[in-house]
């Protein structure tokens, strides 16, 4: 895990000496409801509102070390592994195979896998295929709203190296530039059986205490943010959103 991440860090400087700034053909306006403004409350009091500051927290994530003794951490890891709550966010076409997964034929509930509709309660983000820039922004936010420890599984070849959208102007190519990925499942689409296999492998990683993506994200927060901001031009959100 560490190794391949270091490898990744090593790679960066050669390939991207400076972020290429493209001349903006038009200015990106800030969305109406995000503009700072002053409102008058019913009682006549003037309130200054800056939505981007008020609704979110600017503090970055911190590394959360396993604070327990080995045995308890192992027990916790076992529990984390056996209770994978997937965020119900179908980011790409891979979402189509999630439904068979959760229904009678494959019944992933048997293996402690459930989906949760809110990122707060989920601890596994499945990036189901390609991410358009617009979705990437939402995926990042969802990821950041999840709680440590959290895991990311990249599903389909498009998360690995762009897949069949390798020359598209609107999809990212390497998921690991933007989010820490624990596992990749190749295929287009990967079958539900392959997904189950992937989740099974993820469980092994978690049990072995090797799935520390959340901490990796916190450690390399700057780098991830730089990468994210390079592709997301319309960055109307705080750097970190609780």
């Amino acid at each position: 895990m560490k190794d391949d991440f270091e490898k990744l860090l090593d790679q960066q400087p050669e390939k991207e000496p400076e972020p290429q700034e493209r001349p903006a053909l038009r200015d990106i306006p800030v969305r109406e409801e995000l503009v700072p403004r002053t409102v008058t409350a019913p009682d006549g009091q003037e309130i200054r509102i800056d939505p981007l500051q008020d609704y979110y927290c600017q503090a970055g994530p911190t590394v959360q070390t396993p604070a327990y003794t080995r045995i308890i951490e192992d027990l916790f890891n076992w529990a984390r592994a056996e209770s994978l709550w997937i965020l119900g966010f179908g980011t790409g076409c891979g979402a189509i195979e999630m439904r068979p997964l959760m229904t009678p034929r494959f019944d992933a509930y048997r293996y402690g896998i459930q989906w949760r509709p809110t990122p707060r309660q989920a601890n596994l983000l499945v990036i189901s295929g390609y991410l358009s820039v617009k979705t990437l922004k939402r995926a990042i936010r969802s990821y950041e709203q999840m709680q440590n420890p959290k895991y990311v599984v990249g599903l389909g070849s498009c998360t690995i190296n762009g897949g069949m959208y390798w020359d598209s102007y609107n999809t990212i190519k390497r998921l690991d530039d933007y989010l820490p990925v624990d596992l990749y499942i190749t295929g287009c689409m990967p079958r539900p059986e392959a997904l189950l296999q992937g989740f099974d492998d993820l469980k092994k990683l978690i049990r072995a205490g090797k799935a520390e993506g959340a901490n990796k994200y916190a450690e390399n927060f700057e780098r991830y943010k730089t990468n994210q901001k390079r592709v997301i031009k319309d960055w109307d959100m705080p750097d970190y959103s609780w």
Partner: protein
Amino acid sequence: MSFEWIMIPYSLLTLFIVINYGLLLTALMQKIGARVGRRHGIPIWQNYIDLLKNYSIRSSITHGVMFYLGPVFRLTGGVGLLLFVPTIFGSEMFSNLSFAGDLILALYFIFFGSLGMALGAGESGHPHSAIGVSRGLSQVTTSELPFALAVFAVALQYQTLSVNDIVAAQQGGVMNWTLFTNPLAVAAAMLSFLGSMMRPPFDVVLAPQEIPIGPPTEYHSSYLALMQTNRVIFPIAKMVVYMNLFFGGAASWPVFFLKIFLIYFFSLFIGVVFPRFRVEQSVRWFLIWAMPLGIAAILVV
């Protein structure tokens, strides 16, 4: 009944048994529901793991004091309810802290949890929570009304406000159960029961397809674990009340388990096969169908 210190460990033992039974029972219910959906469903011990997992989440964030207190209130409501009604009739050990006026207290606790939840979830600032809370409060209010009426009817019927006495009055054969002695009240109460179990057709509060997932949207890690714990205690505590009031109580654990299972299953039986009502539809439904039953029950008595 007088207070003795031994009652505290005894009631904690009750709590322990109920928590475990609740964890298993909710899993079992999920499995049964899954069967109707032609699949196996979660392992029976899954709830334990989920609970442990949620306690083991390392980070958690808060939206203020009330946000934190919400689940605590809710849990208090559940535990309180359980502790102040006798779980096993006639058993010294498992009568808990019941006393003469415990029926009123029970009604209070049933409401207490929802209010706490409303406060906490409201604090989280998430619009889905807010919508969920407003829906929840209106629905709970209307669904509890028939129940309150039924309880009133029962209290009138038995001329007591002590759950213990009510149970005692039902002993001596199935035909003595309120179910048969006052079927209208039971019907009203059971309809209200459907409304409080957060299952279709009355789960618009959570409604994952509309406002994922309602009040608990922002809750996570240990907060969520607290709520999960409550989610296994509270329905059972509530069902204990129902069991005591309408189904002759339970004189032993096996009977307790069976009756609770059946009462719980009743909500599942309806819930699996129906979609959910919109909130104003369910409010209207309770007012049209359940309320008259409750009023009739009182009138009959």
